[in-house]
């Protein structure tokens, strides 16, 4: 057996030596600059024409609290409608039936292609087109009575959301391997059962991050319903400042509430993601 060859000279043993801390000069410098800018902004606002006492007084005013409740009720209901429509339309879009496919594509085209505020105004003013609505011979009512601000906002926001959600859902379903459909078919499942039991639960994992995005968008989009007299947060804040002229103070109140709600939603989304990540190896967070 050959002896171990001797190691060459000039390459010292570095084990046991520590790695020195880097000074990170640029981090310190940038932090200092940002602090200065923030301080300047804070000072400007403190000296500006803002009566902060109004902000704190109206932050928990009854009308504002009612507004945030209405905002959340509308956001949740409209999102639920949007997700329901989104799933149905995505399934239609992926079906082999050309009629269903075309109808689904047409729906997405129409409601994504026009501004949301215009759709809200159209729903609210539906009575101008159809003074009475109903099912001939069974039931009818004056459209003005039926199309309340609540219903108009729900239909406007929900149907618009459905058009966007359908594309998110379709992407999720397409992300599931074709072998999963085949395995489901091989144990005798029909198309719809395979979608419900096998494909959609796997698609959910993929669609929750974009849906969380959409829901945050929805919370803020409800403010558009102020133009059709739905008493949500912004609408109520506006009503107060029409009376007391504290415009900026009340806009800040509304802004703080929107920020708070969105901040609460983010950890909720994480919980949901974990629920649907069953069986997958977690990616590093």
């Amino acid at each position, binding site marked *: 057996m050959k002896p171990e060859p001797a190691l060459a000279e000039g390459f010292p043993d570095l084990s046991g030596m520590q790695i020195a801390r880097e000074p990170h000069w640029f981090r310190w410098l940038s932090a200092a600059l940002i602090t200065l800018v923030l301080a300047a902004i804070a000072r400007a606002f403190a000296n500006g024409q803002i009566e902060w006492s109004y902000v704190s007084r109206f932050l928990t005013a009854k009308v504002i609290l009612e507004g945030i409740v209405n905002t959340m009720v509308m956001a949740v209901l409209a999102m639920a409608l949007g997700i329901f429509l989104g799933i149905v339309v995505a399934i239609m879009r992926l079906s082999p039936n050309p009629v269903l496919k075309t109808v689904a594509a047409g729906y997405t085209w129409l409601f994504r292609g026009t501004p949301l505020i215009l759709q809200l105004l159209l729903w609210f003013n539906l009575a101008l087109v159809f003074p009475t609505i109903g099912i001939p011979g069974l039931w009818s009512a004056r459209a003005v009575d039926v199309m309340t601000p609540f219903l108009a906002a729900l239909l406007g926001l929900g149907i618009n959301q459905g058009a966007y959600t359908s594309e998110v859902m379709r992407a999720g379903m397409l992300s599931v391997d074709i072998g999963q459909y085949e*395995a489901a*078919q*091989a*144990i*005798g499942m029909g198309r719809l059962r395979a979608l419900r039991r096998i494909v959609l639960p*796997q698609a959910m*994992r993929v669609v929750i991050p974009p849906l969380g995005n959409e829901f945050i968008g929805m919370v803020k989009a409800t403010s558009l319903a102020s133009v059709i007299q739905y008493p949500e947060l912004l609408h109520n804040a506006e009503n107060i400042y029409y009376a007391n002229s504290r415009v900026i103070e009340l806009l800040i109140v509304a802004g703080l509430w929107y920020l708070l709600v969105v901040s609460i939603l983010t950890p909720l989304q994480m919980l949901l993601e974990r629920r649907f990540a069953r*069986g*997958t190896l977690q990616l590093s967070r």
Partner: protein
Amino acid sequence: MTKPLVAIRSVAKNFGEFQALRSVSLDVWPGEVMCLIGASGSGKTTLLRCINQLAAIDAGGIWLDGELLGVREQGGRLHRLSEREIGRQRLKTGMVFQRFNLFPHKTALENVTEGPLQVQGRKSDEVRAEALELLRRVGLSAKADAYPAQLSGGQQQRVAIARALAMKPMLMLFDEPTSALDPELVGEVLAVMKELAKSGMTMMVVTHELGFAREVADRVVYMDQGAIVEQGRASDVLGTPREERTKAFLSAVI
């Protein structure tokens, strides 16, 4: 007189210009273990998929247990069956895929119980007991609550076999069940299949494992370019092939 469990008559299947199957006819008898061999693109996988109706045939007919698959003859014409009827026919066959296709969001046990509970609508405690027994049979009692991602390829494929068996099929179709496995995991899957063959199950196995074919198969069918070239006892086809194409294939594989 016994009848074949599967009767395939003049079946053709095209993918666009490509003829995957050209007038294939074949009988599979109850209790028979048949291995289908051949190069990729020879049509052996397509033949299995046609029997399981994952692919619809373009011509000819396949009868399973005496029943014509996928279509109904009426007034001199063939009418396609509804999705529901095709689903009912599929229950007579169990399919094992090359890439396992376990449901990743369900545990091993839930994968096995999904079909009996959801499709057959059977009682849950009875199904659960049967599923645990099937998992024991494939040697995975300890892994009932594991998710597919926590199992090795060989273990996943054994769960997939248990999932197919849970539907109590008359015929088991294996589509290259060991091709996606690391070499050291092939044996455990083949062992489960051998045990299944011994129990009398009718099996059609698309495989490159000639050792398995030699040991277990009652009949070996060699396919090339969408047609059956040669078939017979495993020792004959693999040992003393008559056709030049079979000889060339075997010498390339071994």
